[in-house]
């Protein structure tokens, strides 16, 4: 039997797998991407959109690490909107509705451009594990075997996936695609703790059968923006989406048929996301709400493949087909709509992510990395961001180098990884801006500055981005320097209309910007500033206006990093630490924190226990020295 060897093998061609494969190959590792269906690489299995609040931050971060999601979304965008525009720069999120075909094409093109990357269509059936318990490769359905010491698993909903439509149960990862059953078994054999989660998708409707005329439209932003620093002048065509609502008739149909819903009949044990409930849940749990909004989102441009499909965002369900028909027809504009593909719920296995290091490597299977839904998350962006880190680390692992991670002070990706590996999940994990305690510092606008330098250090940034990034940094620095050097007397500023006290204290232009002066005033006192690129102007404005908050967070992040650097030795003996109660000892032994920061987050661990450990470590250090 011929065995082909790679530095890194990625299993799965979804959003996590694609970023993982691309990152690994950018890192210079010989990478193999194994997928059950080549044509489905980069498929948007659920809603045809990328980004949003929190998720948009992740896309910006993926892009800052030279990932592919942002670039692909920019090429495939057919409806752009910045959400939360009025609420401040840190919580704004670009949301893009993408043409499905254009998106997967863009992803596939970007993957083809990757050096060192081989894509093979084959279904992985089992792992090859050495006698010593370390991974050696994978065996596929074709009978072929591929060997590698670093394997990234991104199986999405395919791990023992089961699709439910009413009382019908079909083993599948996506509709019409076989699940991965052997791997689920292997993971259990490797001693991993698996859980079950659930998600769902709405029926898809035929565009021509919808009565659009009476529905209100959302055209998106008049000046659509890009996710990626690299995107510019992409020819794009935008289409509006429409908004409709459920009716009392809809609610009645759901209530009457609730027993036939897979979710309510006891067929599904997995926990679904509370923030993205099926229509059954919305109606049963919030009976007082008279109607629910539905966005009718085109899946592609009208003349493109899939262009006749509409995604009705808001009526995900697992009801029998005939009930789905009745529901759809009870909604204004959809009275005669034809269902092309029925909605369904999918249940799948996930691994308790507390079994992962913050590098996303499995703690007790060296060389095995995981990203996406298998870690209990939901969403393309969450999967992509984790995939990217997995790709970097698998490549580093194959080279025998130290693995890396991101912390909560650096990025949303860092927040997500920390949340997952510390607390685990009880429902599919989605990114929210409120999860980030340093939210004001982790803005979409500064993602490049936050992460690209790190990426350069790790080796995952391509030449083109490096150049563009360095140019950006240079112009930002120059602008900042100039702004600092230009000083104004308060009397002059007041005369020009800036609101401040006439204290005789000179202020530089950055300090003037902090007062949030109108564009007219800015143009009047610093005409050079309005000549700068909009991005540079915007960043300087935010930085000066938020200075107080940002420097406070900077200090806190420094403290966080100090605590992260306080390492607990592997052989720490909690029984010998004076002043730890039995309960605390048990928690510590179970969680085995690797540093002070991790210990601090163990639930129920008292401050005195922490101090006791520090006392012990302090003594321990003294003995060593």
């Amino acid at each position, binding site marked *: 039997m011929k065995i082909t060897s790679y530095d890194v093998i990625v299993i799965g061609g979804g959003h996590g797998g694609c970023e993982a494969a691309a990152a690994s190959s950018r890192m210079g590792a010989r990478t193999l991407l194994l997928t059950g269906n080549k044509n489905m690489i980069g498929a948007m299995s659920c809603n045809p959109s990328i980004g949003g*609040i929190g998720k948009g931050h992740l896309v910006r971060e993926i892009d800052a690490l030279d990932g592919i999601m942002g670039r692909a979304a920019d090429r495939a965008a057919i409806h752009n909107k910045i959400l939360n525009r009025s*609420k401040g720069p840190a*919580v704004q999120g670009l949301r893009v509705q993408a043409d499905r075909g254009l998106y997967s094409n863009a992803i596939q093109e970007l993957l083809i451009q990757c050096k060192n990357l081989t894509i093979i269509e084959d279904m992985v059936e089992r792992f090859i594990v050495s006698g010593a318990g370390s991974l050696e490769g994978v065996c596929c359905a074709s009978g072929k075997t591929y060997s590698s010491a670093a394997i990234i698993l991104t199986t999405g909903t395919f791990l023992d996936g089961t699709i439910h439509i009413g009382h019908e149960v079909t083993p599948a990862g996506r509709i019409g695609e076989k699940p991965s059953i052997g791997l689920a078994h292997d993971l259990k054999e490797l001693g991993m703790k698996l859980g079950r989660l659930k998600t769902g998708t709405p029926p898809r409707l035929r565009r021509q059968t919808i009565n659009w005329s009476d529905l209100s439209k959302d055209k998106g932003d008049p000046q659509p923006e890009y996710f990626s620093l690299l995107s510019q002048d992409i020819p794009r065509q935008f289409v509006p989406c429409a908004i409709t609502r459920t009716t009392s008739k809809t609610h009645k149909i759901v209530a009457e048929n609730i027993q036939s819903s897979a979710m309510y009949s006891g067929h599904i044990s997995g926990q679904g996301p509370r923030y993205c409930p099926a229509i059954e849940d919305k109606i049963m749990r919030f009976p007082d709400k008279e109607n629910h909004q539905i966005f009718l989102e085109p899946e592609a441009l009208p003349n493109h493949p899939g262009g006749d499909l509409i995604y009705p965002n808001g009526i995900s369900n697992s009801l029998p087909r005939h009930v789905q028909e009745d529901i759809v027809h009870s909604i204004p504009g959809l009275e005669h709509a034809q269902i092309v593909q029925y909605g369904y719920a999918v249940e799948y296995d996930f691994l308790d992510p507390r079994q992962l290091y913050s590098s996303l490597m499995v703690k007790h299977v060296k060389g095995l990395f995981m990203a996406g839904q298998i870690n209990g998350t939901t969403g393309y962006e969450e999967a992509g961001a984790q995939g990217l880190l997995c790709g970097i680390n698998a490549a580093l692992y194959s080279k025998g180098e130290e693995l890396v991670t991101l912390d909560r002070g650096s990025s949303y990706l860092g927040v997500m990884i920390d949340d997952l590996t510390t607390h685990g999940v009880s429902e599919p994990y989605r990114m929210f801006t*409120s999860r980030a305690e340093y939210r004001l510092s982790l803005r979409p606008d500064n993602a490049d500055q936050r992460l690209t330098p790190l990426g350069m250090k790790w080796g995952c940034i391509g030449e083109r981005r490096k150049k563009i990034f360095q140019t950006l940094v240079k112009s930002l620095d120059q602008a900042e320097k100039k702004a600092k050097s230009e000083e104004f007397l308060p009397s002059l500023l007041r005369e020009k209309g800036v609101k401040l006290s006439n204290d005789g204290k000179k202020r530089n232009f950055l300090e003037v910007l902090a007062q949030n002066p109108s564009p007219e005033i800015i143009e009047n006192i610093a005409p050079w500033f309005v000549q700068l690129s909009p991005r540079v102007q915007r960043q300087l404005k935010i930085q000066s206006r938020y200075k107080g908050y940002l420097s406070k967070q900077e200090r806190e992040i420094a403290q966080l990093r100090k605590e992260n650097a306080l390492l607990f030795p592997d052989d720490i003996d909690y029984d010998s630490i004076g*002043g730890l109660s039995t309960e605390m000892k048990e928690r510590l032994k179970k969680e085995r924190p690797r540093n002070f920061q991790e210990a*601090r987050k163990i639930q129920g661990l008292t401050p005195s226990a922490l*101090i*006791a450990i520090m*006392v012990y470590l302090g003594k321990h250090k003294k003995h060593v020295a």
Partner: protein
Amino acid sequence: MDNVLISQEDTIFALASGLERAAIAIFRVSGPKSASLLKSLCGTLPKPRYASLRTIWNNYETKDDALDEALILWFPGPRSYTGQDSFEIHLHASAAIVESVSEACVAHGGRPAEPGEFTRRAFLNGRLDLIEAEGVADLIASQTQAQRRQALQQTHGALSKLYEGWRSELKEILAFSEALIDFSDEELPQEVEKNLRRRILHLIKEMQTHVGDGDYGRRIRRGVVVAIVGPPNVGKSTFLNWVSERDAAITSPIAGTTRDALEITTTISGVKTTFVDTAGLRETADIIELEGVKRAMFHVKHCDFVIQIFTPNAIPKEIFDNAILLGNKADLGPIPSIIEGQNVISVSLKNHIGLRELKDKLAKKIEKLVSSHSAMPYMNRARHRAAVVESIEHLGHSIEDLPEEIRCEELRLSMNALGRLTGRVNSEELLDSIFGEFCIGK
């Protein structure tokens, strides 16, 4: 964290009770060498947690010098106050005995405890949480019943409960505000935002009321200070004597500086009350007296209230702010019943006339000073006050006209400030300042 890494290896000792006015002095020892130290003092270890009467020796082995007959209590760790092996000796309260027992302890390997070191160990060993630890500090410092009540209240978590209540309200407010950001594309009920503003304002008000209570709490802790003013020879000393004679057992005259004040500390209505006799308030060219007048004015400025004493032949033209007017020597001439709208108490300290009314008036005034109008526990630590004030400040910003993400940030900062009070935040500064305030020996 380095400065909280205080070693617990030393065996420490301290006097756990005050020496003054007490029949016994409680001596406390904690640390790994407690058992051997106790054996060196009195031979064998007694049954744990049972009082036993022993002779305390300078050195039991050599039987040189019996220091005292005392009750001893042996507390093997971890079931002790500090969590370590500890013991207590209840000595006869004599400075000489205490001193010689201290010397014996040093000779057998102990060292005097740093301020707060016992409680710090208790905290480090998980025997106390932060708020409890502070409550214990107050309990130790308390010399009077009102102080003890307040300290107990805190130890039993009344304050923790209050803070937790605010915290959970704030948590909800924050959660709703976050929802308005993270789920802005959803249809949230419009009243959410309006209700938030109302709830924030309500919380601010509640917290402000509590902060306003702070003065009461502080008065209980340090007691009430009363300045006695009046020209010479109006009876200030007589007044002080009368005050101190009321309950001779609990007064302790502390010598003032050369010329100015004599202080008498006593207990009125369960509250530690210090009367400060100021030097005669009259215009003078005498340099030393000038200094005295300066100091008198200092006391007047910093006291809780003033007792202004005068006589029929020296009716004051001006009266002090916040003063009880006391017309002495009422037997010698007429005393007006009201001066500038203020009631005057007429007495003759020498002939014991009107003293009952004076006593009642003093008691009422002091009770009013230390009783709060609200049912909340007293705010009694500068740290608590600072945290609540900071929390209020951020709450205030959170309803200003700012971008939503900043208003939310202010709510988070407000929450963090409050969070510091429950001891969940690991800040070395915090710990140091708390433990620095502790009286040694519990």
